[in-house]
């Protein structure tokens, strides 16, 4: 059988650091960075006698995520201890969830090449993050526990993904979702979004799963794609040679572009899970769920569908939906100028987004051109008070000077000339001094209209309302 007849089966385990103020089980700040071991306390250092106290904000954030992906939220869930030894794990166990996770089932919806895809979720559970080992070049190792105890939720997908591209897009959708929900900054570089991939291959059409490998250390969208692609190719090559895929955990080395075995099935940890006796079960009642539901924003997929319904291009919609502040900006502008969704999208994408480094700057109340101001400008252009070209100039000044379009137009008479008499006068002058062109136009050369318009514009210093110019020229040349 040729390797072409195999399909890949991929499931992702995505770890999301929740953007709580304090850690999941203690009072230290959960913020990224700081001096090593600055954000620590007896609990997250695993000192003798210290006990965890659950941060309800972390539960609330996970509940919101669960609701957003339509998981079943367990009315009663509990934590379990997951044991293994590692220097960055201060208690000798991680407080995670095992047989009673907070969220079960659900699905993440996203689009790949315009097509809607759905990836089912197995579960979403909460746990505490470990610290970080730092290895000195001299051979000494240090441990920084600032990250220890930062809340994580782990989103485990079903093996519904079929390509590296699709896996990367799914991961992007998860990031967009957690950012929409405001529960994480989803920053892969800082590790607030991390991903392990389970990859296997099977003959196309088969229903049984092949032997899987787990890929670790794939911490950028590019690495996710590269690592999974490499793993699919590696497994296909093995099978092509008649060899078996070995169940193991492999570590991706992005510098060398390949993975290496980390531990085999036989070396797998026995985590010795048991219910965390220091924490009572977590009860999420109907009132909690109702409050969380009310607080949910419009989700990316719903917004995507709504904006497509406005007649926007798929490409524009993708840009507007990708980051919540962009879509929010668009919606606020649209509320002020509901007749012009396409124009607003163009102005937002071409002018506004070109001037900000990060979409988060759009939510800043200090964004130089707020949504209503953009809407006002677009209205002026669409009414013909400004040409597109003038509009762009006005926009630049709005951004620079933080002034409204109406103010600039009124104060400095940059508006277009819409006085029919003035325009007609200019049109007559152009027609009178161009007899040859008039003859050729009347003889059927319609392209010459551009010549007349251009000359009228020159006559009026570019301020004539192009719509009126066209109308009047057509009459004169008829």
């Amino acid at each position: 059988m040729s390797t072409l007849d195999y399909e890949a089966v991929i499931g992702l385990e995505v770890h999301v650091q929740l953007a709580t103020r304090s850690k999941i089980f203690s009072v230290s700040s959960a913020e990224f960075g700081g001096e090593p071991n600055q954000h620590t306390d007896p609990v997250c250092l695993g000192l003798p006698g210290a006990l965890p106290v659950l941060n309800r904000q972390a539960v609330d954030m996970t509940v919101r995520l669960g609701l957003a992906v339509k998981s079943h939220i367990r009315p009663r869930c509990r934590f379990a201890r997951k044991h293994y030894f590692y220097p960055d794990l201060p208690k000798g166990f991680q407080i995670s969830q095992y047989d009673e996770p907070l969220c079960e089932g659900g699905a993440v919806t996203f689009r790949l090449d315009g097509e809607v895809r759905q990836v089912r979720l197995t579960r979403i559970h909460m746990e505490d993050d470990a610290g970080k080992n730092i290895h000195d070049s001299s051979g000494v190792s240090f441990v920084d526990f600032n990250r220890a105890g930062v809340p994580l939720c782990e989103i485990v997908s079903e093996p519904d993904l079929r390509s590296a591209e699709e896996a990367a897009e799914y991961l992007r959708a998860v990031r967009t979702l957690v950012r929409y929900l405001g529960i994480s900054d989803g920053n892969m570089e800082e590790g607030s979004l991390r991903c392990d991939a389970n990859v296997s291959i099977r003959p196309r059409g088969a229903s049984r799963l092949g032997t899987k490998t787990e890929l670790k250390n794939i911490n950028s969208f590019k690495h996710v794609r590269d690592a999974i692609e490499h793993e699919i190719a590696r497994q296909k090559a093995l099978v092509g040679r008649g060899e078996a895929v070995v169940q193991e955990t492999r570590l991706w080395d992005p510098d060398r572009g390949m993975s290496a075995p980390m531990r085999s099935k036989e070396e797998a940890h026995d985590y010795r899970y048991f219910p965390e006796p220091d924490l009572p079960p977590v009860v999420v009642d109907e009132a909690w769920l109702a409050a969380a539901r009310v607080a949910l924003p419009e989700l990316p997929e719903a917004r995507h569908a709504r904006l497509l319904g406005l007649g926007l291009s798929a490409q524009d919609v993708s840009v507007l939906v990708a980051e919540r502040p962009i879509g929010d900006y668009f919606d606020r502008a649209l509320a002020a100028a509901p007749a012009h969704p396409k124009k607003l999208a163009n102005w937002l994408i071409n002018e506004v987004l070109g001037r900000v480094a990060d979409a988060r700057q759009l939510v800043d109340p200090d964004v130089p051109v707020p949504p209503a101001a953009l809407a006002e400008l677009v209205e002026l252009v669409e009414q013909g008070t400004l040409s597109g070209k003038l509009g762009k100039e006005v926009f630049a000044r709005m951004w620079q000077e933080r002034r409204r379009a109406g103010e600039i137009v009124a104060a400095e008479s940059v508006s277009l000339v819409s006085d029919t008499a003035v325009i007609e006068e200019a049109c007559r002058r152009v027609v009178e001094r161009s007899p040859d062109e008039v003859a050729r136009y009347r003889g059927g050369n319609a392209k010459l209209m551009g010549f007349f318009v251009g000359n009228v514009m020159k006559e009026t210093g570019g301020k004539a309302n192009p719509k009126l110019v066209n109308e009047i020229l057509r009459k004169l040349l008829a």
Partner: protein
Amino acid sequence: MTPEVRGLPLVAQAEGVARGTWKSRDLVEAYLDRIARLDKRIGAFLLVDAEGARRAADSIDRKVAAGEAVGPLGGVPVGLKDIFVTRGIETTAGSKILKGFIPPYESTATARLAAAGAVRLGKLNMDEFAMGSSNENSAFFPVHNPWDLGRVPGGSSGGAAAAVAASLCAGTLGTDTGGSIRQPAALCGVVGIKPTYGRVSRYGVIAFASSLDHPGPFGRTVEDAAALLEVVAGHDPMDSTSIPQPAGRYRAASKTGIAGMRLGVPKEYFQAGMDPEVEAAVRAALDELGRAGATLLPVSLPHTEYAIATYYLICTAGASSNLARYDGVRYGHRTAEAHSLEELYGKTRGEGFGAEPKRRIVLGTYVLRAGYYEAYYGKALRVRRLIANDFAAAFAEVDALVAPVSPTPAFKLGERLSDPLQMYLGDIYTVAPPLAGVPALSQCCGFTKSGLPIGLQTIGPALGEEAVFRVAGAYEARTDWHRRLPEDPA
């Protein structure tokens, strides 16, 4: 005035300080003197913080002189089982693996003692990580029973019980996981109470088996124990298993009397194998309670026979988990030389832990291994539920249960060391109450012919400490056993 602290109740000491009869500093010096003279024979203290105690006492004395309030335990010198984390004071849990560990924080219970004006004399000896029934598992040195220096004081809070018995401090705090307060209290002839689970915060109490660990006090009298419990009990937001109810009025309860109370006598607690002198003393105590106005009724706790097996499954699982953090990376003992991470762990833990923690870590690791959870731990949790139901059913009929504490009086040092199973079976009457989370108190109800104390256990329903104190207080009011003091060792 320098008081004679030998045998002087804690409550009386606090009153004397508050009234200005004597100074806290006088009490501290008197105890420091006794410790210096006597404790090398007893071994109750692992650490004596003489300077800290003097400073705290002087501060109390200044407040008294200035007419300020000093709290219900103002100026009273207390000892703490070395399982309570104390800021700036070495805390070892009786283990070499924590030798040299100076905690940067304070346990809730000891902070509450200090806030009530108690003066911390030092840290008390114990079985390593509270694992043991004889205090011979201390990594440092054993504790000797003040009633007979050749015998054990019981464990794991052996130092805490012996220190009160020998009048080396006014009162102490210990912990009880399977009997570690009640059994040494019985063997040393003092009062010890294991309150309802969650009644006293576990924050800052070094964990052995989290769902079974119960901090609680030792006192010379029932009222002393009540006074200590009133101070340390009550909700603590730092312990998620802490119960929300405020502490009760235990001192008052201890003086209420028991007229009309219904007391259950569980038949499973009077089985073959009990020392006849113990049985006789306990039965005599039951008669005394009857004379005090209580009605005694036979009751049954049918799942008692499974309590020890259940207890050892749950506590070893907990131990294997809670002791995983002692890895030599952040604090405590680290092996001198290791060439790999595995070697660092193996040698650090191999050198740092004694035989009993190792035995329980191995057992607990076995209990929790993949695929066997239901067979062991899961089943133990279900049986635990049945044991708790036994108590609930009994308390539907009676207000409290009365029973022996230990089937034998204090045994000889070394006698059971070679036979851990025999040692475990000695816990037969003490393991069920912590499994059910219900309060239970041990007090002296007589002596053997050879002069060893015998314990009486009163078990109450969950949150029913008042009932327990009523029974214990009424019994104590009618008897003189608590007035007997061991001879000071020569």
